[in-house]
């Protein structure tokens, strides 16, 4: 199945409370206690699950360490099972950025500058998701940065709810500005938010090289031609490294057919041939 369909299906599944978009009321069912793997604001009128980053920050602001255990355990579980496969297949905001990148405009190619910028997301994770919520009791990432929250929750709720509309101020203007900046950058730079800012991607990236599922390379077949790295639009240095979102574009680019998903039948084929 094509990756775009999986991304679309996951986005719909995360936000299948469709009536919420009309009424401006968020979902209040039991599934709201379960964190979804991708970045999806739980205040989105359609959301049927909790955002792991929002939940983690709120738990840290009130020092609810058992809640932190539950959320960190969930993130570890997602990360060790799938790594950044989640970014490539199960993140609605990643899909939105990829669709924006389809707009025919001059594109910024990956370079040493973008590779250096990709380290920024670890600082965002450390300061806005962990340190500031712990020290200043503010969910800083959600409050000042998260463009997914503005797009999926802020705008729909403000449009649908007159009371909320009457309360908007400088913070809302700032968040809309951040969203507009990321929308514009995403048109010319592939998944800019994921590569440079996303703390969820930063967390999963740490587990990406050891995750159970994902992409792997047959070292005996690999000739080191780097066709995989050349075709990749992320800041990868090797297939399956921290920046790899396991999208699988390199599988088709490899002239030696040395790249495959760990769970496909390719392994059997290799074993028979060798």
């Amino acid at each position, binding site marked *: 199945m094509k990756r775009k369909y999986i991304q679309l299906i996951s986005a719909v599944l995360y936000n299948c409370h469709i009536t919420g978009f009309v009424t401006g009321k968020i979902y209040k069912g039991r599934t709201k206690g379960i964190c979804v793997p991708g970045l999806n604001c739980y*205040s989105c009128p359609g959301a049927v699950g909790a955002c792991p980053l929002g939940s983690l920050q709120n738990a840290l602001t009130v020092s609810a360490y058992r809640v932190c*255990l539950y959320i*960190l355990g969930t993130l570890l579980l997602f990360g060790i099972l799938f790594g950044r496969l989640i970014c490539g297949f199960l993140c609605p905001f990643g899909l939105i950025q990829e669709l924006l990148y389809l707009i025919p405009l001059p594109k910024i190619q990956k370079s040493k500058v973008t590779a250096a910028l990709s380290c920024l997301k670890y600082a965002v994770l450390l300061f806005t998701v962990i340190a500031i919520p712990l020290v200043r009791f503010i969910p800083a990432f959600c409050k000042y940065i998260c463009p997914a929250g503005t797009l999926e929750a802020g705008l729909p709720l403000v449009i649908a709810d007159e009371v909320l509309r009457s*309360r908007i101020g400088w*913070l809302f203007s700032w968040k809309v500005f951040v969203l507009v900046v990321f929308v514009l950058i995403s048109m010319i730079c592939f998944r800019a938010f994921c590569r440079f800012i996303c703390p969820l991607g930063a967390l999963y990236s740490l587990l990406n090289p*050891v995750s159970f599922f994902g992409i792997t390379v047959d070292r005996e077949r690999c000739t080191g031609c780097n066709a995989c790295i050349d075709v990749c639009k992320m800041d990868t240095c090797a297939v399956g490294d921290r920046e790899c979102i396991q999208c699988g574009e390199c599988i088709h680019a490899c002239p030696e057919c040395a790249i495959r998903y760990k769970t496909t039948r390719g392994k059997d084929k290799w074993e028979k041939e060798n």
Partner: protein
Amino acid sequence: MTESVRKNFIRCIILAAAVIMIIAGLTGGAFRDVFTRAVMICMECIGIG
């Protein structure tokens, strides 16, 4: 210890840690707390509060 054995060992340790953390959190009522927070509009998330 080969590379793949070492990786599998790390995977299993992390997987076990994740499961233990989830269980520890759930027994402490974490599900209810996450649920309680998630069913309210997050004013910070939407840029109001």
